[in-house]
Each structure stands twice: as structure tokens, then as C-alpha cells.
């Protein structure tokens, strides 16, 4: 049985995710796959995403992966990354796209005229290393409070249920950058590109037994 299935629906480069998982779990059987049966049978599922949400939803459906993703998100350790977090919600302002609706809430865009405390313009996409303020959860084990992770995104999630929130970040206002519900955990940043802290989170995911 596959230990981890990384869901491949043709959107972007999944090698980074695969290589980072191999680094933290050298003995695990890790596959990048667009096969629904492999996803259904895997012990853990990683659901990444890059690019635009309308394309991601369309490509996922074109490959017939919706049911396998829905099932995994409700039944086994599941890690959403970036657009893979945003797709879990009901609706995104990006192309006014319907998401999977596993979590209640929406996805909105950063404003265009934001400024920092020095009056300098804040750019969109929010790109680079920002501090993540987290609450207690097994996936944060061994990760310093306010550790920096690598972000690159223009949209962020607004969950209805505040109890889902596992971490927030500031740009310049606070926004939600991690959520969890039962066996599901999802982050806006890229753990696979976040050096030590990111690898630690992936390692925690590989050992997580919700």
C-alpha cells in the first residue's frame, strides 16, 4: 500500500513536494499520482496546488479526482498546500470559482493599495518568508512560535468557523494561514520550500495519527 499519495492534477511542479517528503521520510513509499484508486488506497494524501483556482478545479475534475480527494479529506491524514488549502473552501473570489466545500468559508484577494508601517507599498502576490503564529496542534511540534515560512499567493482563506484556525500571519492585517479539522490539515505557505521549519512540519505530518 502506498504510504503517501501526492495528488497530481497537472498544475505545476510537484517534484519539490515529493523531494521534501523523501527527505523527511526516506523509507516511505511516496507516489505522485493522478490515479483515483491510488489516492483512495494511500495511507496519507498530500493535496498541493499552484496557479489559478479555476484551472486547478477544472483540471482536478478533468482527471476524475474529485471523489477521491473528498474521500481522503474526510478519512485519512490529509495535507493541503497553497491552492490545495483554498480549494477546500466553498467559494473563491479568483474567477468566482466554486471550491470543494469541505470547509465553510470563502477565499478572498489581498487589497491592491496596502502599505506597511513605514509607508512602503505592500506587493501582491504576498511573496517571501513571513512569520506564522500557531496554536497547539501535533503538526507544529518542534516548530518555534512565529517561525518563518515561504509564501507566494494573492488570495487567502476566511473560514466561518474560527475553531478551525491553526495559524495566522500578518500582511499587514492578520490572515488565516493554516486550518485543521479532524484528519485534515492545510496550510497557505509552502512547507516544501520553507527549509528547516517546513521540513519539520512535513515530518510531523508523516508521523501524525489523528
Amino acid at each position, binding site marked *: 500500500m502506498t504510504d503517501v499519495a501526492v495528488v497530481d492534477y497537472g498544475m*505545476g511542479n510537484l517534484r519539490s513536494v515529493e*523531494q521534501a517528503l523523501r527527505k523527511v521520510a526516506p523509507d516511505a513509499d511516496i507516489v505522485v499520482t493522478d490515479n483515483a484508486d491510488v489516492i483512495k488506497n494511500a495511507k496519507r494524501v498530500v493535496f498541493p496546488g499552484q*496557479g489559478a483556482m479555476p484551472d486547478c478545479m477544472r483540471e482536478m475534475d478533468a482527471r476524475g479526482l474529485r471523489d477521491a480527494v473528498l474521500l481522503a479529506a474526510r478519512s485519512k491524514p490529509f495535507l493541503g498546500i497553497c491552492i490545495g488549502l483554498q480549494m477546500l473552501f466553498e467559494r473563491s473570489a479568483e474567477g468566482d470559482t466554486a471550491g470543494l466545500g469541505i470547509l465553510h468559508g470563502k477565499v478572498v484577494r489581498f487589497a491592491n493599495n496596502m502599505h506597511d508601517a513605514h509607508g512602503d507599498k505592500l506587493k501582491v502576490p504576498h511573496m*517571501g518568508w*513571513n512569520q506564522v503564529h500557531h496554536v497547539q496542534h501535533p503538526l507544529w511540534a518542534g516548530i518555534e512560535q512565529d517561525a*518563518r515560512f*515561504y509564501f507566494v499567493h494573492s488570495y487567502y482563506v476566511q473560514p466561518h468557523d474560527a475553531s478551525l484556525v491553526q495559524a495566522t500571519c500578518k500582511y499587514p492585517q492578520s490572515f488565516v494561514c493554516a486550518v485543521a479539522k479532524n484528519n485534515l490539515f492545510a496550510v497557505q505557505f509552502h512547507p516544501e*520550500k520553507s527549509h528547516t521549519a517546513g521540513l519539520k512540519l512535513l515530518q510531523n505530518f508523516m508521523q501524525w495519527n489523528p
Partner: protein
Amino acid sequence: MLAKRIIPCLDVTAGRVVKGVSFVELRDAGDPVEIARRYNEQGADELTFLDITASSDDRGIIFRIIEQVASQVFIPLTVGGGVREVQDVRNLLNAGADKVSINTSAVLNPQLVADASGRYGSQCIVVAIDAKQVTPGHWEVFTHGGRNATGLDAVAWARKMQDLGAGEILLTSMDRDGQKIGFDLALTRSVTDVLDIPVIASGGVGNLQHLVDGVKKGGADAVLAASIFHFGEYTVQQAKQFMAAQGIEVRL
């Protein structure tokens, strides 16, 4: 708060890292994989690889280098040089690049920027602009490693690239490249002020104060440097500590 990024740049040719002065007089700086690993350990926020190989025969070398680096270094990797079509973008992403930088081909075929960002997302498309001052306050875009003038105004060009879907601009002053006299701050400020996307300042860093000036005076979101790191004058960590001491938010 979002940290300002420090990005060591590795110019690669024939499998080696080299560094030139104003785009010529190349000097060997070592093995790219070894150098990438060293900068990663020193806390680099990203790495940029520019394949400056003229001959297409050697194209395979950069793919092997990126594959090796990507399996060991878990920070964002940008790769540029010789990107002519969407398939080149795809190949570099598949080799392990997180972002692909497009320079000459963006000028020859601006639609490539739209097509590539439409297909893979703006987050992975960097447009590199090599600019040279023509009159005070005006800069022209050059292509082909700085050899060909285009007649394009650098600021207007940067804005056009943003409109076509670039996620970031890598802005190099040809006048300053390798001169170690600091960034062209007027150029940097002119571009960063009119854009909504991040701008990486490049060309001319000779000391750590130059990095500070790029952020504080130039308004850059990230600063790129090569020779001060390659030849051991400073570590990335020293650069970050210097910037932090001057009140710049960095990832230490």
C-alpha cells in the same frame, strides 16, 4: 512581518559558477551544487541560477544541476537563461525550479509571458530586465546578455510585463553590474514605485550597506548579489545581521 529577501545569484556556464564585470570578463567561482548548499546553510532566502551558456549543446548541464540542487536544498529556486517557449518553462519546473526567469524572449515574444503565466501561474514567472541608463531618469532595456538595445523604456516595460502576468521583476542595472558601487537606486525606485508585484534589485553590490540601500532607498522587495558572496567577502548570514541591525525585517 514579511522579510526582505536576500538572493545569491549563480551565473552558470559549462557546469561552473562564474562572475563577470558588466557582463564580460568571466571569473570562475566554483561548483554550483556545492555553492548552493553553502548558501542554503547560511540562510539564503532563495537562489537564482542564470544559465549564461551561449551554446545550446550545453543546455542539459543546467537541468542536471537544478535536479541535484532541488533534491538537497529546500528553499525556492529560480532558473533563467535560454527560455524561449512554454515547453522550456515546463522542463525547468520539472527539473525542480520553482520559478523561471524570462529575459530576451519576453522582448522578442511578450505573449510568452502571458502564455507561461496563464499555464503555470504568475507565481513562477519572473521577468528579468537588463537596463542601462540613457539619460538621467531614463533607462533602456537590453537583451542577449546586454548586447542588444531594444529602444524600450525600462519602467514602461516592467509595467507591461506585470500586466501580461509576470509575478516578479528581476531588475539588473547593466551600468552597475560587477562594479561593486551599489545598486542603481533611482532605477530601482522608479520601477518599484509603479508596480504592484515584487521587485528584486540586482547589479552593483559591493558591500553590505548597498543591500540596505537597495531596500531602504530603492524600495526593493528583495536584493540579489553574487560576487560579495562567491568570493567569501561576506556570508549571507552576515548580510542579514547587518540589515537587521539597520531595522530591516529579515529571516535570521
